[in-house]
């Protein structure tokens, strides 16, 4: 992806003082905050110019639609119907008539304007507290016109952060495996898209099987498993340049790769003679280290955000369970003790939780537990689902879910789903084809 310069200007100092509105994201939000997203106003000249470049009639309202959709899918906000808005966008941005917005029960209001300056897209927006009758935030961005959707995502991140007190996750992307064809001869490609399912792009052609892509911390690199020439190996892909290389020189299958939190190492499993152990490879000096040494299957490693610990999946007790250890492989401790089998542990970016897949009595669950194994909470149950990946703020999980085939093998599908850490707001994420193995990027801006 191209590096994009965003210049960001604070239009006014946001006041930190007791805003009347705030959104509590620590509980399931059954009462989303009513918010009015006024279309960004635009002057005639700019509108015509942008229409030529972007083939969008009114880029101002297109950007506000991106914001509106983001806020809605977060489950925390209820964007109000635009037909009920009484005030014109340009006037609202200057000075909202709070009585009008109060009348339609909006508690927060987003206004703004777009124009073209030196062939660039300049957007300013304001967030208003309707009940208090005060401006909460005002920001302006300048960027290349083709970045207009990202502007919508960044506005959402700012609003989300101002109202919830936590970083957003909207200016992000998802890398995943796109699937097509019959189950017995499934064709799989790497694909990448914006968090809201737009701008889907395929990164491989489907000539070889590819699995489990994962971003590095800067989201410029991806590590994944490819069956190129029928040799299943971990690869490293630079999304910007498209160059890729095999990771290490292992005399057998390497799989289950992830980056270390500083992006300098890849941690993965290497299988030999029926035994899988966990290894790391330093991407700078190519030094390979063996982290686990046990005759059982050790796989699905994931670092803690500070890099000091690793959680992983092992069947050393006889069945798949979750373990943690220090990053040098010492102090191995089992942490999953509930009923059933546990797999795919992933450490939360906040550091306090581990998300996992659980299989119990023929059902699959996505759940979370504390890093000592206590406080297990199951978020969702289904016929088949696995492989949770955290949003960068640690509030949402994305995973994939498969439906049951009938006895003729028909009716199978694989889709991406997301769910809030609270267990609420479960949603299917739209993809052009069937999809699996999602990995959430870090925030691309800020």
């Amino acid at each position, binding site marked *: 992806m191209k590096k994009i310069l965003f210049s960001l200007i604070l239009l006014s100092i946001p006041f930190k003082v007791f805003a009347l509105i705030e959104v509590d994201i620590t509980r399931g939000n059954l009462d989303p905050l009513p918010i009015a997203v006024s279309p960004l106003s635009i002057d005639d000249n700019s509108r015509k110019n942008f229409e030529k470049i972007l083939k969008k009639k009114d880029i101002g309202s297109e950007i506000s639609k991106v914001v509106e959709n983001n806020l809605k899918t977060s489950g925390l906000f209820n964007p109000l119907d635009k037909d009920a808005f009484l005030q014109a966008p340009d006037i609202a941005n200057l000075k909202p008539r709070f009585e009008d917005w109060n009348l339609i029960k909006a508690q927060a209001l987003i206004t703004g304007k777009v124009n073209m300056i030196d062939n660039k897209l300049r957007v300013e927006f304001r967030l208003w507290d309707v009940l208090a009758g005060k401006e909460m935030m005002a920001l302006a961005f300048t960027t290349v016109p083709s970045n207009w959707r990202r502007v919508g995502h960044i506005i959402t991140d700012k609003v989300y952060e101002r109202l919830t007190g936590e970083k957003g996750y909207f200016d992000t992307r998802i890398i995943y495996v796109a699937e097509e064809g*019959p*189950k*017995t*001869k*499934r064709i799989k490609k790497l694909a990448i898209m914006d968090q809201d399912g737009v701008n889907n792009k395929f990164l491989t052609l489907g000539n070889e*099987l590819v*699995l*489990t892509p994962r971003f590095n911390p800067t989201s410029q690199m991806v590590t994944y*498993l490819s069956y190129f020439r*029928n040799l*299943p190996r971990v690869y490293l892909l630079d999304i910007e340049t498209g160059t890729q290389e095999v990771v290490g020189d292992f005399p*057998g*299958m390497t*799989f*289950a790769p992830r980056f270390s939190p500083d992006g300098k190492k890849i941690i993965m*499993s290497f*299988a030999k*003679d*029926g*035994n*899988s152990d966990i290894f790391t490879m330093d991407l700078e000096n190519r030094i390979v280290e063996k982290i686990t040494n046990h005759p059982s*299957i050790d*796989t*699905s490693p994931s670092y803690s955000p500070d890099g000091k610990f690793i959680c992983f*999946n092992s*069947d050393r007790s006889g*069945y*798949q369970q979750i373990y943690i250890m220090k990053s040098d492989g010492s102090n191995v401790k089992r942490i999953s003790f509930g009923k059933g089998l546990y*797999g*795919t542990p992933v450490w939360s970016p906040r550091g306090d939780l581990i998300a996992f*897949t659980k*299989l119990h009595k*023929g059902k699959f669950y996505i759940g979370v537990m504390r890093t000592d194994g206590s406080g297990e909470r199951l978020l969702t149950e289904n*016929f*088949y689902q*696995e*492989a949770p990946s955290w949003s960068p703020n640690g509030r949402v999980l994305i995973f994939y879910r*498969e439906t*049951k*085939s*009938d*006895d*003729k*093998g028909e009716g*199978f599908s694989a889709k991406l789903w997301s769910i809030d850490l609270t267990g609420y707001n479960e949603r299917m994420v739209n993809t052009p084809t069937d999809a*699996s*193995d999602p990995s959430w990027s870090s925030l691309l801006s800020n």
Partner: protein
Amino acid sequence: MKKLRIRNIDQGAIMKLNKILKNSFLVLFACLALSACAVSKKSTGQMQGDVYTGTDTVEYLASGVPDRVFFATNESVLTTASRETLRKQAAWLRKNSDITIVLEGHADERGTREYNLALGERRANAAKDYLMTYGISSDRISVLSYGKERPVDSGSNPLAWSKNRRSVTVKAN
């Protein structure tokens, strides 16, 4: 006196042996009864326990030499039938010493992807180890795990899953 003493000892030993035999017979009987139970409960004609015993998906490397062996859920232990199949493969490989093979290990769809990759590798290696004990050189065998990526039966039911938990011997040259 000496004789008597010996006889006494012998008799004691014989009595002990009888007791052991009787007990182990009882144990054996109990085993049979239990496994008969298990079979009558779970066998669908094509499965024993949850190991596939049918021939629907089986192909042949040569006449009388099946190409694949099947596994129980989460297991990589070779069954009696699997060992018999692998002995036939070993005999065929000994006769055709120029042939090299790939052992493709597979899992069913009811497990997490990464664990299943490791499990497929473990299953294929169970088959490899057995072939090696029957004289096939490891130079002639390579192992490839597909995890759950290449089922033969796309159904979502216990019989379909049993067909998919397999190690398949494929000619490589």
